[in-house]
Every structure is written in structure tokens, then in C-alpha cells.
């Protein structure tokens, strides 16, 4: 018996989502009285970080076995790793890759899948995993009855714990067969920070009155090391790129801090951001529904508040260094 976690490096680095999933897998292994193995599908210069969060063994997929993203090949690689490690629980991050592969792996292994888990299972009677439902408005407690189980962990919902261990590294060449999907091109967005992985996000909406007024939003975000986001109307009218759109139809994000400027807080927008740990709302309208979901609020004109905030942040930074 063991716990297996799927990881896929980005730019030859183990991603934040993968570290969270690995830490979750290692905690789960402890709970079940076993060890956790990480399957690393791709080159990573920093695979040892997986050992530091409690992974005892790394299966490093050799280059060439899987040169590009294809769910048929990757799910076969996971299946072979599961058999090799006698894994009974397989953990993914519920990110772009996890959403693509975890369902295939679950169907292949006849395993129950909990997609979007937010905490470790309750094993006091059975195996019950809490997951986010209704676009973040509630949680469901899901009992998994199959012998082999698959869990995909919602990003930024689990605190990583450094255990300070080291993992042994074994090279792994799974038999993956032919790819049905060929990757033709990868287009990176120009954003400096990936919105779905950012801890801090500064977002703005129609209250900014025009695309030429985003200077202050970008300045505040750059100063804070935050990613920028926007509401749907602003993306639809072309003031901001579509990849910045957060909400029901755009991206769902769960940063530690979400600062919303000039966004009223329609239910569709909230559905994409209500998993944020702390929400700050800046709006001229004291009755804006977003204030009901906020932790901190400023009622005021963004054009006056933002320059003051930028100055205040510079002072805050200077006094906290």
C-alpha cells in the first residue's frame, strides 16, 4: 500500500500546485500508515523539494517516454506507477493537468474520484473527503467506497508543511503506447505571474471607466508582487485580455488576498473568487453587493483612493523591510 502523487514540472520547476498535492499526499500517507511516492512527468531541476514536504520516493519519468501532454499516455504512465507502488490513493492537483488526467485514471482503475478536495479525508468511519461544490458556495462530504481512490486537491486550499526529508530518486520508463493528441504549439500569456497560482491578486472592473485608466492597478499590483485580474464586462468589451477574466465563466481563483476595485460583485463574479482567503473591496457605491463578501472595504472613488494606496504601500514596504 502507498499513496501516489502526480506532478508535472512547469519550466523545469516543480509547481506550487504540485508541492501542495505532494504535501497532502505525504500527510495522507502518514494518516494511512504508509509512504508517499511522487511521479514526476517531465524534467525538473528542483525535484528534491518534493522530499522536503515528505515524499519518500520519486519516480522520475525519463525524457522521451512522454515528451508532450497526452492524457491517454499520461494515464497509462500513472497506471503503471500505481501497480509498481501498489498505490491505493492517487493524488492530483485540481489544476489544468489534473482535470485532464485524473478522470481518465479513475475510469481506468475503477476508482472513485473526489474532484476539488479541500482537506484530508476523515477516516474515522470509512473514507470521507470534503470538496467544494456550488461554485465555492458550499462543501460536500463525499464517501469513497472503491478500494483504489483518486483525489484531486483544489489549489491553495491546503497548507504545505515542510518535513525536511529527502526522497530517493528512481528513473521510470513506463510503457505508454501511442499519443492520440499532438501538441502543435504552446502560447504563454504575457502576464508575469500566473493568475491561478498567484498569492495576491489586484482586480478591477467597469468602475475604472476605460482601459487607459489601468496604470494605477498595474502599479499597485507590481509593487505588491500581485497578479492582475478583471471582471467579465471589462474582458468582453476588450479593455483587458480574456485570460485575466475571473468569475463563473472565466477562471476560478483562490488567492490569499483578492483586491477588487470598481467591481460591484455580481454573483457570477463571486463564484470565481469566493475561495479567496481575504477579500478587499474598493467601490464608490456603499451598497455594492461585493461588500457583503468582503473582509475589508473602502467606500470611495478609485481614482482618488488608488494613488493614496500606492503611496501608503510604498511606506508600508519601507517600514517593514
Amino acid at each position, binding site marked *: 500500500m502507498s499513496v501516489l502523487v502526480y506532478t508535472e514540472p512547469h519550466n523545469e520547476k516543480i509547481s506550487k500546485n504540485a508541492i501542495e498535492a505532494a504535501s497532502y499526499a505525504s500527510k495522507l500517507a502518514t494518516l494511512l500508515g504508509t509512504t508517499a511516492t511522487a511521479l514526476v512527468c517531465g524534467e525538473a531541476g528542483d525535484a528534491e523539494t518534493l522530499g522536503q514536504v515528505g515524499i519518500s520516493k520519486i519516480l522520475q519519468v525519463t525524457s522521451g517516454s512522454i515528451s508532450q*501532454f*497526452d*492524457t491517454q499516455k499520461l*494515464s497509462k504512465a500513472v497506471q503503471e506507477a500505481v501497480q509498481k507502488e501498489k498505490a491505493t490513493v492517487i493524488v492530483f492537483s485540481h*489544476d489544468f*493537468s489534473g*482535470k*485532464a*488526467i*485524473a*478522470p*481518465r485514471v*479513475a*475510469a481506468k482503475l*475503477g*476508482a*472513485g*474520484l473526489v474532484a*476539488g478536495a479541500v482537506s484530508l479525508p476523515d477516516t474515522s468511519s470509512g473514507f470521507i473527503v470534503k470538496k467544494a*461544490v*456550488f461554485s465555492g*458556495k*458550499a462543501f*460536500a*462530504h463525499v*464517501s*469513497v*467506497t*472503491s478500494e483504489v481512490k483518486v483525489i484531486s486537491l483544489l489549489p491553495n486550499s491546503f497548507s504545505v508543511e515542510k518535513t525536511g526529508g529527502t526522497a530517493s530518486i528512481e528513473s521510470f520508463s513506463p510503457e505508454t503506447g501511442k499519443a*492520440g*493528441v499532438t*501538441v*502543435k504549439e*504552446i*502560447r504563454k*500569456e504575457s*502576464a508575469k505571474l*500566473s493568475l491561478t497560482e498567484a498569492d*495576491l491578486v489586484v482586480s478591477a472592473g467597469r468602475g475604472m471607466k476605460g482601459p487607459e485608466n489601468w496604470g494605477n492597478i498595474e502599479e499597485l499590483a507590481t509593487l*505588491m508582487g500581485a497578479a492582475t485580474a478583471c471582471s467579465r464586462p471589462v474582458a468582453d468589451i476588450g479593455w483587458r485580455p480574456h485570460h485575466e477574466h475571473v468569475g*463563473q*465563466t472565466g477562471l476560478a481563483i483562490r488567492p490569499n*488576498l483578492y483586491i477588487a476595485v470598481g467591481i460591484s460583485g455580481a*454573483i*457570477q463574479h463571486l*463564484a470565481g473568487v469566493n475561495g479567496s482567503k*481575504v477579500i*478587499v*473591496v474598493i467601490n464608490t457605491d456603499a451598497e455594492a453587493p461585493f461588500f457583503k463578501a468582503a473582509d475589508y*472595504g*473602502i*467606500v470611495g*472613488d478609485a481614482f*482618488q*483612493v488608488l494613488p493614496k*494606496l500606492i*503611496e501608503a504601500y510604498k*511606506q*508600508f514596504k519601507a517600514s*517593514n523591510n
Partner: protein
Amino acid sequence: MKLLVCISKAPDTTSKISFTENNTKFNEAGVQYIINPYDEWYALVRALELKETLGGTVTTITVGKADNEPTIRKALAIGADDAVRIDAEASDALAVAKQIADYVKNNSYDIIFCGKETIDYNGSQVGGMIAELLDLSYVSLASKLEVNGNTATLERDIQGGKEVVETNIPFVVSCAKGMAEARIPNMRGIMAARTKPLQVLPGSEAPKLTEIVAYSLLPEKAGCKFIDAENPGELFQLLHNEAKVI
């Protein structure tokens, strides 16, 4: 082309979410059901667009009881040619995927469309599972899809960007924003939908590997703390000392 679109119902986005029977059942009182928006706006409409340019048929498939029929009729009003309802409880993603895969095995299709997830259970599971059960290619979270002969070119969302991929027909795709624009059914469509074929088929044997045993609501926010707009710098002290996020 034979196109199949998986449709499920979901509570309207603005529905109040609450639970009954000691927090074990979703409270349906007063809840308006709609076609899951990703199934409707992106999957169904893109399938209709392909049919309009390349010819063929668009069939919708739903796993669930008769209470799904109003949303199925709406999909027909938007333009699907016919609909299939597998008369089984949509209890678990793998069970739903198995019902659909079993149907497809007996009725081959060129492209099987799903929405990227449902807005109630947010699983993003059924498309990948159907693909696995049928041993087909799967392109997840696609925002573009063009078909050229036997080959399709798709754009899918990945970490920090997009990936352009190619695959051969048949395949399974889950559809995200960018695929198509929502369509509003017109009166002619609504009238025609009443008489379009809706076939009800019995469900096959399907495993039930997961079950929701309880629900809980997101903890209420303690309330919003307001900061003076004239002196907003206090915000960063609070975020640092109280909320500890910066």
C-alpha cells in the same frame, strides 16, 4: 458529422444554496433549473456551428430522471436535432460516464462534447471518463475547435497560457469560454422543440463508487471592516497584522 453533446441540468447561478434532511440533501425548493451553462453556451452552440458549416446532426444526451426534460427541450429549442435521455440516477460521475459510453458504443459519433464542469458539483470529470471508457483522445478545457476533414485543431487552457493541439476524429472534448457565444432560442425553435424526438433509454448497470453523505455551507464572513477613503494606508497594516496575508 455526427455530433453528441452531453447536457446536464444545474441550479440557476443566482439560486440560494441550502440543504435539508439534516444537511444531507440539496434543498430544491424554489430552485430554477437551467442547462448547465458550459454545456449550453460552449459545447452545444459550438456543435451547432460545426453542423451548420459541415453538415450532419447534433444529438444531446442526458443521464437522469424525467425532471430533466424541460432543460432537454430547451437544448432542442436552441437547435439540437434530437435528444436521448438515459433513465438512470446521475449519482456519481463515473456512473454517468459509463451510461454515456455504453450508449456511444452502440451509436458511433465523431465528436463527443461536454462542458468544462457543472456549476453545481464542479467536478470536470465526465468528459475524461467517457474518453477513457471508449479509449478515445480527450482534449480538456478547450477554448477553440476547428475541424478539417478527419482532423481537428483545438486550443486548450494550460497553466499560464494555451496549447494548440491536433487530434483525429473521433474524440472527446470539454468546452470552456471562447468556444462559442450563447444563443437565445427563437419562437420557431421553441415550437419545433416540442415535436423533436426525445428518446428515453433504460440505464445499464453502473458502479457507484462515491456518495455525498453530507453538505456544509461556506462559513459566513465576520463582516466587512471599513477603512477611511481619505486615509486608506491603514489597509496594509490590517492586512499585515490582522489578516496576515502580506
